[in-house]
């Protein structure tokens, strides 16, 4: 196959570091036994891989006890665990217009089933959320939970987390951060940053395979599990263990995914998150700089605090058509449409057709971006509509 110019890393990062695939192959070939269910050598080897990955998460996200990192299927499951396991009848919650359907849909379900009260912090293109409005809403009523998408998967805007944490200190709410787009891009320090729940996925900025996610839980006693079942521990009891990580990890784990994630984590640890962020900043800056002089192109992202995502539209061509031409004629992979985040598109004025999203990874290079810019120039000039 001819070279694919892959700019859909906010959906899933590709390619993965070589070690990710190699470790999964080795695991399946050599010791893919069930971890924590037996005491034979292979089971222990498998459990050691799970343990090592958890320890790696604790190191990279800077938290002392690795059992506070729970393995899930993806960020969506991590978010669902918190929303379903923490919110009760008539609870008041505050969230943002940046949210993905992984937050909006469970919240709307809970609105129906538990009559929760949902309020939105005003949108602000420069900062993602309007902090003055946030402050006013907190003054009006303290929410049981504040849910914030740390970086919009549509515009790439990273919200100022430390400013949110200052407000948390003052108003004492619990905080759920959706880190689907920021894990491996933003340098979290969970020892210092008082985030109650951090939802992550393994297959984007953490460079692991699909199907593995993570949830950081600071205080497990305030949260109910979503799943109950076998954990390999306390088998004589027919009630769920209360200790971590078992309380939230019923059923056989996705060790194949965990093993791959571990190598993704080793990769970002070796490169350093600050270097990855720096490279993304360079790519995003170059792309935006070169597109902004093309009159027919409207850009919905800016270079300040960007996770490596640029959303655009070309006058008089639908996003799906642009993405189709890029794929078919130029081998360029992008994502058109609403990106599972309908409410921010309403704020941007791009609902219901959305935008064309370019999202970069550490593996992208400037010459690939030059190729994409030339392709967009060509499409713009040759648009017959």
């Amino acid at each position: 196959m001819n070279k694919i110019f892959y700019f859909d890393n906010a959906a899933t990062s590709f390619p993965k570091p070589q070690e990710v695939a190699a470790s999964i192959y080795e695991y399946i070939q050599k010791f893919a036994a069930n971890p924590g269910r037996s005491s034979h050598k292979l089971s222990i080897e498998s459990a050691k891989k799970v343990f090592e990955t958890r320890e790696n998460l604790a190191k990279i996200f800077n938290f002392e006890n690795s059992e506070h990192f729970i393995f899930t299927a993806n960020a969506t499951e991590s978010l669902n665990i918190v929303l379903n396991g923490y919110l009760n009848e008539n609870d008041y919650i505050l969230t943002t217009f940046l949210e993905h359907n992984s937050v909006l849909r469970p919240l709307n379900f809970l609105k129906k089933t538990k009559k929760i009260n949902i309020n939105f912090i005003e949108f602000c293109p420069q900062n993602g959320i309007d902090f003055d409005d946030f402050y006013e809403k907190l003054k009006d009523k303290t929410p049981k939970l504040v849910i914030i998408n740390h970086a919009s998967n549509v515009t790439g805007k990273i919200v100022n987390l430390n400013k949110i944490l200052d407000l948390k200190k003052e108003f004492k709410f619990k905080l759920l951060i959706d880190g689907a787009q920021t894990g491996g891009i933003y340098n979290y320090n969970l020892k210092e940053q008082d985030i109650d729940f951090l939802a992550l996925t393994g297959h984007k900025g953490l460079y692991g395979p699909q199907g593995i996610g993570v949830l950081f839980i600071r205080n497990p006693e305030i949260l109910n599990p979503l799943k109950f079942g076998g954990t390999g521990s306390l088998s004589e009891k027919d009630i769920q263990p209360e200790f971590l990580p078992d309380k939230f990890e019923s059923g056989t784990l996705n060790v194949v995914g965990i093993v791959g994630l571990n190598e993704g984590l080793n990769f970002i640890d070796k490169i350093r998150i600050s270097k990855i962020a720096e490279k993304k900043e360079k790519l995003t800056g170059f792309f935006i700089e070169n597109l902004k002089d093309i009159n027919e192109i409207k850009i919905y992202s800016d270079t300040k605090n960007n996770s490596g995502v640029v959303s655009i539209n070309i006058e008089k061509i639908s996003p799906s058509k642009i993405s189709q031409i890029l794929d078919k004629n130029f081998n360029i992979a992008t994502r058109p449409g609403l990106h599972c985040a309908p409410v921010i598109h309403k704020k941007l004025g791009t609902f219901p057709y959305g935008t064309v999203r370019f999202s970069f990874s550490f593996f992208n290079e400037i010459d690939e971006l030059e190729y994409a810019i030339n392709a967009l120039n060509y499409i713009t000039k040759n648009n017959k509509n």
Partner: protein
Amino acid sequence: MKAIIIMDSIHYILKAEKLLKKYGIKIDLIPVPKEVDSNCGNAIEIKNEEDLFKVNEILKNHKINFKVFKYNEELNFFVEIGG
């Protein structure tokens, strides 16, 4: 085999293994002896009984729940001595 420690789950067994090795304590991961009721099927054997005090201190400092069993030759049985 003179003394063993057991924990709630394999995560804590592996966490204790990492910690105890770091402190230079000679240990081995073993399947739990049949006389001891272990939750996760695995145990840590403490090679030198005189390390038990240190083991106790290290695990408590790191807030790891555990139980210690010592082999009683007269009874031919493991007896719980603390945790």
